[in-house]
């Protein structure tokens, strides 16, 4: 099954290699890995999606923590987190294309349905930008292909994940807003035993938040 881990790691040279090396050592395939800045200085945030047996999650998390450069690790599943991916698609479109002059307007329509944006327009191509779950991106790709459009280039970021509701603040707290006490607190008990109260759950700002992702 697919596991998604969010790891906060020190922003230092070689840290990505350490994380990647760990997964290689455990003989696990990384499906996607994204790295970027976090809310805290000198700390990077990684979202790692990997294929592993169900019972392996504990060991992967414990092993990630064993890396000296790891600050915090969280395993998130789709039900409790927002998982997003950014995708850029360059589609062949222009007067010489099969759909001829209509191709652009058709692509605009498709993009609209999928809430993708047109970010570049060239005489023979259109670039679309889209965020969403992996399945939504794959849906757009599929519709474009089946409609006879040629996709010239695809660039996908891989998944990013963030827990819904107050869970996210736990990470912030653990990272030093309440140093010491926070660090002790996060070790207590199973993760997130308490249920979020209703006012902590944000309104669904995306209409696809509960959309099923493929085979998670």
């Amino acid at each position, binding site marked *: 099954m697919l596991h998604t881990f969010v790891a906060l790691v020190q922003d230092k040279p*070689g840290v990505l*290699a*350490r994380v990647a*090396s760990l997964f290689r*050592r455990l003989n696990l395939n990384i499906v996607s890995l994204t790295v970027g800045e976090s809310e805290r200085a000198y700390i990077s945030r990684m979202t790692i999606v990997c294929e592993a047996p169900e*019972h392996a999650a*504990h*060991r992967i*998390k*414990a*092993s990630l*923590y*064993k*890396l*000296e450069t790891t600050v*915090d*690790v969280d395993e998130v599943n789709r039900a409790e987190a927002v998982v997003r991916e950014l995708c850029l698609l360059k589609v062949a479109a222009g007067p010489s294309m099969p759909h001829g002059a209509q191709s652009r307007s058709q692509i605009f329509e498709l993009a609209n349905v999928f809430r993708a944006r047109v970010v570049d327009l060239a005489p023979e191509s259109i670039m679309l930008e889209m965020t969403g779950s992996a399945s939504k991106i794959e849906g757009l790709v599929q519709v474009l292909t089946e409609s006879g459009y040629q996709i010239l280039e695809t660039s996908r970021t891989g998944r990013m994940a963030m827990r819904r509701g107050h869970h996210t603040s736990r990470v912030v707290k653990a990272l030093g807003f309440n140093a010491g006490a926070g660090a*002790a607190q*996060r*070790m*207590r008990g199973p993760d997130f035993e308490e249920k979020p109260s209703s006012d902590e759950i944000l309104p669904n700002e995306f209409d696809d938040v509960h959309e099923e992702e493929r085979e998670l």
Partner: protein
Amino acid sequence: MSDTTNTHPQLTGAEILWATLAGEGTTTVFGYPGGAILPIYDALRKFPTIHHVLVRHEQGASHMADGYARASGRVGVCMATSGPGATNLVTGIATAMLDSIPMVAITGQVSSKVLGSDAFQEVDITGITLPVTKHNFLVTRAEDIAATVRLAFQIATSGRPGPVLIDITKDAQQASAAFDFEAAAPPKARPHPMLGTALTAHSPAIREAVAMISASARPVILAGHGIMQSGAEAEVLAFAERLGIPIASTLLGLGAIPAGHPLSLGMMGMHGESWVNHAIQEADLLLAFGMRFDDRVTGNLAHYAPHAKKIHIEIDPSEISKNVRVDVALVGDLKAVLQTLLPWTGADAQARRPWLDDIETSKGTVAVRDIQNLPDNGHLYAAHVINDIWREAVAAGREKETVIVTDVGQHQMWEAQYFKHEAPRSLVTSGGLGTMGFALPAAIGAKFACPGKDVWVIAGDGGFQMTAAELSTIVQEGLAINIAVINNGFLGMVRQWQEAFYDKNYSASPILSPDFVMLAQAHGIAGAHVSQREYVTETVTKARTSGAAFLINFQVEKEDGVYPMIAPGAALHEMVRRPHQDPLLETAEDA
């Protein structure tokens, strides 16, 4: 380096390194100089409290640091230059990693200005050692050296110990910086976040464990290396005695509790005695103390201890339910966990009497074949040699003052079976990685750690030749190390497997050796050949009391096997006994 002014002294990076090592308590460093580490070696003379041991091959340096750490419990330090010097350390670092040994390895590196340019003797050693170190560092500035070294010592010793490598560029060694040992102290070690808060009597896991222990009629303690790492020898004994629970040991757990203790069963696993493995297979509760259910101790996992619930006390959360699914995991330092657990367990040692009697009975029927009791039949067996080394030490009252350092192979298993370890840290052996060539250099490290003890190398003719160059180091350092080469003209364990599983196709296992006694003599080390059992003890005494290094070449049976043995893939109780036509057993039946 006394600080006479209020300001901190300006030192070179090389001086800062030595000063920090000295501050961390390092007195012995095993190493080999070279271009990229010359500034460090140049500064060595300013630090008279540190003794540098020049090795003959950098692999020896890392094994020596490892042996030093195993015998003493302190951090072993080794050192090498960049490129080939650094890569030669790797086997020893991996050996330390697999057995969780605290070690700090320091390597020189080319100047930071040419890093990444394939400069002379440049190698990406932090990249190479990434999977075999607990952590590693590349230091390019003199001002970072002190803090990095101090952090490395903390990482090497905290939690589950392990090796840490520090790669220091030549320009960082040469540059100057202010040195302030106190200010370089690392922040308090971060405990593994999944350790949880300290277990208390109210923790559900402790309560569950207590209930399981009370309900158990046939429990067995699995004693691992973690007992010594945690310093929990007394707690384990108190626990076992209070509850009347027998103790089986892993290879690295030998010595944690005295072999002669009535509750001690001996070594478990692939070459463990039959009653030990039977006890585990028939147990209703396994208490794993600081061990990791290695494949060499479990046999086929599908049939491992089928009736037993398992309680695992372990400091590394990533070991929990890795190989064997456990019912209760008590994650933490073994000593502390046992101290929490002990008061809540009722003293009911008598309740397990029937279970102990059962085990004792199963012992009686197979102990007949125990070759240590067999008469001399004119053949020299390695097991006899090792057992006689033990008996000689006992006769001299030195058995607790003896450190045996083994290599890897048949002799290692015979040692584990026939040398009865009474004291913690009295056996130094490469368990996890199984590194041939380990014994001789590791013994040099052990001798530096315990100069007052009798240190024995027990090595096969194959492994001994892998690192025999360190004989010269022994002489240069004037060390009184006793060396027993168990010489059977074969890579014995390979031969045994070829006999058992490859139709006696002895492919590349016969090995030609030099005359080891002459080899020793060429180094200025005295030696003797022994091929008859009657001369074993007197030669051992001669070696032990010679006051200098001494090598004995024991010419033993060529095609002897280690028994019992569990074939790979077989369950723990499906062991292969010594074949009946074995000359040893024929003698036994005659007698």
